């Protein structure tokens, strides 16, 4: 990676000197094509077709596979040929006529810079060079193989739209446009990544957006200095506050409806070419527990389910630690009958409870990772082995007690009960640290860790907005959508100007 970067730098420095005069477009069509070919290193998929009519020539350049070839002839070549047939020569016509005529195909722009021509070419546009002209005409007719819009796999629901974002930026923008048909919806385009030159869109609703957050987002995007981005996850990491935190301070989603709801709340979202995951910022801790479906089902049920999510987050964070603390420090807190059966289960187990818990949690994490990475065909094999290893065999062999199996599986189930994968990842990570604290000072250690965790959380900021927002600093007004989901008719969900976050 490093070598590559250095090489790149050298190459850039070398070419920098000659850059200015080379950027001009030559009136000779073939010369232009040659230059581009040379600069791109004569790629196999670079297509250049020249057409002559008498001494008039024009040429189309495009990258194979990024352009709709069917339309190419119909929209650009035929009209131009027709026109030439009628008018003899390009020379005889005024500029205006030419441009009007050439509007026939899809949207078109013109440029005099060769390098921007090349950028457009690489983004899947068609470049038209005309003999004797120092401009290039760029028609955008991108079409390449994309995934069809399908149900998002990371955030599924029972009731609600089934559409998810895809890897194509323009389609994603359309998905948002279709939900918010408001002239105030804004898309601001940026290009980041020195090498990848990835296009991103900052989306917000003018007049509703939290201006500070917007300013902050743009400021941070502009100051991102990186060579490559392929996924919003990378951008997220580059944009977050400094300092180390296991918690994500920028939310990501695959669902257009979630993005739209965030936009109306005054938040900013960032779309990127090549990934279905869209960033939402600023975000709060609470919003990681709010699924889109909460607003599509009845409020009482949603509130209940939201409570379940909070509880399961806590379980997935603290249950193994609680088990360790209770069984090794605070046996007096366990009811007698339970203690007797726990003690009976622990008979003959060679490991201390901490090691037992750590090993089993570790095994589970391995299984989970294997389950995600493995080829689909091996799936049943892994699940059988996993079930036998952490379920039956380990207990029967007397390696671990049945109680810890229950604890681990409850933890595992609880960690899946969250609409956002990123926040349950935090719980996964912190669980192990919490277990160490529990094993060194019992419940006291857990309390100390929890305090430290919350101090960290209250000091976290998401784009300058407090991360634990409706709770600390406390805002009674915003409580209606924090722990509870109050009925929508209680008060119109007024999206005030400064709500974001």
């Amino acid at each position, binding site marked *: 990676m490093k070598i590559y970067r250095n090489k790149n730098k050298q190459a850039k420095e070398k070419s920098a000197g000659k850059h200015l005069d080379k950027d001009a477009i030559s009136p000779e069509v073939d010369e232009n094509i040659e230059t581009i070919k040379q600069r791109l290193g004569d790629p196999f998929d670079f297509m250049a077709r020249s057409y002559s009519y008498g001494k008039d020539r024009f040429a189309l350049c495009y990258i194979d596979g990024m352009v709709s070839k069917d339309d190419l002839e119909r929209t650009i070549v035929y009209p131009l040929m027709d026109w030439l047939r009628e008018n003899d020569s390009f020379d005889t016509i005024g500029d205006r006529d030419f441009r009007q005529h050439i509007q026939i195909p899809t949207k078109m722009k013109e440029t005099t810079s060769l390098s921007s021509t090349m950028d457009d070419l690489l983004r899947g546009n068609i470049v038209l060079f005309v003999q004797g002209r120092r401009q290039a005409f760029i028609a955008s007719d991108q079409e390449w193989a994309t995934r069809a819009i399908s149900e998002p796999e990371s955030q599924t629901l029972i009731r609600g739209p089934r559409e998810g974002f895809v890897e194509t930026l323009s389609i994603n923008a359309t998905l948002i446009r279709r939900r918010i048909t408001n002239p105030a919806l804004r898309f601001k385009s940026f290009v980041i990544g020195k090498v990848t030159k990835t296009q991103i869109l900052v989306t917000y609703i003018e007049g509703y957006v939290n201006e500070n957050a917007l300013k*902050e987002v743009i400021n941070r995007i502009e100051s991102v200095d990186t060579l490559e981005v392929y996924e919003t996850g990378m951008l997220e990491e580059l944009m977050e506050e400094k300092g180390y935190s296991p918690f994500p301070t920028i939310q990501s989603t695959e669902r257009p409806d979630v993005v739209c709801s965030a936009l109306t709340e005054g938040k900013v979202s960032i779309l990127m070419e090549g990934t279905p995951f869209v960033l939402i910022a600023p975000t709060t801790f609470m919003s990681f527990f709010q699924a889109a479906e909460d607003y599509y089902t009845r409020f009482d049920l949603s509130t209940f389910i939201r409570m379940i999510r909070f509880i399961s987050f806590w379980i997935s964070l603290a249950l193994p630690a609680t088990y360790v603390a209770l069984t090794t420090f605070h046996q007096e807190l366990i009811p007698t009958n339970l203690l007797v059966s726990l003690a009976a289960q622990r008979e003959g187990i060679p490991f201390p409870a901490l090691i037992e818990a750590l090993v089993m949690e570790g095994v589970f994490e391995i299984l989970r990772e294997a389950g995600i990475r493995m080829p689909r065909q091996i799936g049943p094999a892994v699940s059988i082995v996993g079930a036998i290893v952490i379920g039956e065999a380990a207990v029967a062999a007397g390696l671990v007690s049945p109680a810890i199996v229950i604890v681990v599986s409850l933890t595992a189930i609880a960690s899946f009960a969250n609409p956002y994968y990123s926040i349950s990842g935090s719980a996964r990570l912190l669980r192990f640290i919490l277990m160490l604290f529990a094993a060194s000072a019992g419940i006291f250690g857990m309390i100390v860790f929890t305090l430290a965790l919350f101090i960290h959380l209250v000091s976290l900021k998401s784009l300058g907005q407090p991360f634990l927002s409706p709770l600390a600093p406390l805002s009674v007004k915003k409580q209606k959508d924090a722990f509870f989901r109050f009925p929508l008719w209680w008060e119109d969900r007024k999206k005030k100007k400064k709500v974001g976050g």
Partner: protein
Amino acid sequence: MQDWKTTMKANKTTREKIVLAIVWGFSLYYIIGYLAGIDPFPITVWLKAIYGPIYHTLFGG
């Protein structure tokens, strides 16, 4: 607006240095005394000597 990724580090003034030295000095003096098993700053004894008699005159016993 650029400060979200930079840390501010100011140089210490003389006054700060003196206070810091006193704080560290007292802290180390106390902890070494404590670890060595002597009471390096017997504030409890002094306070008892001062307030004990007052308490007993107030409430007897």
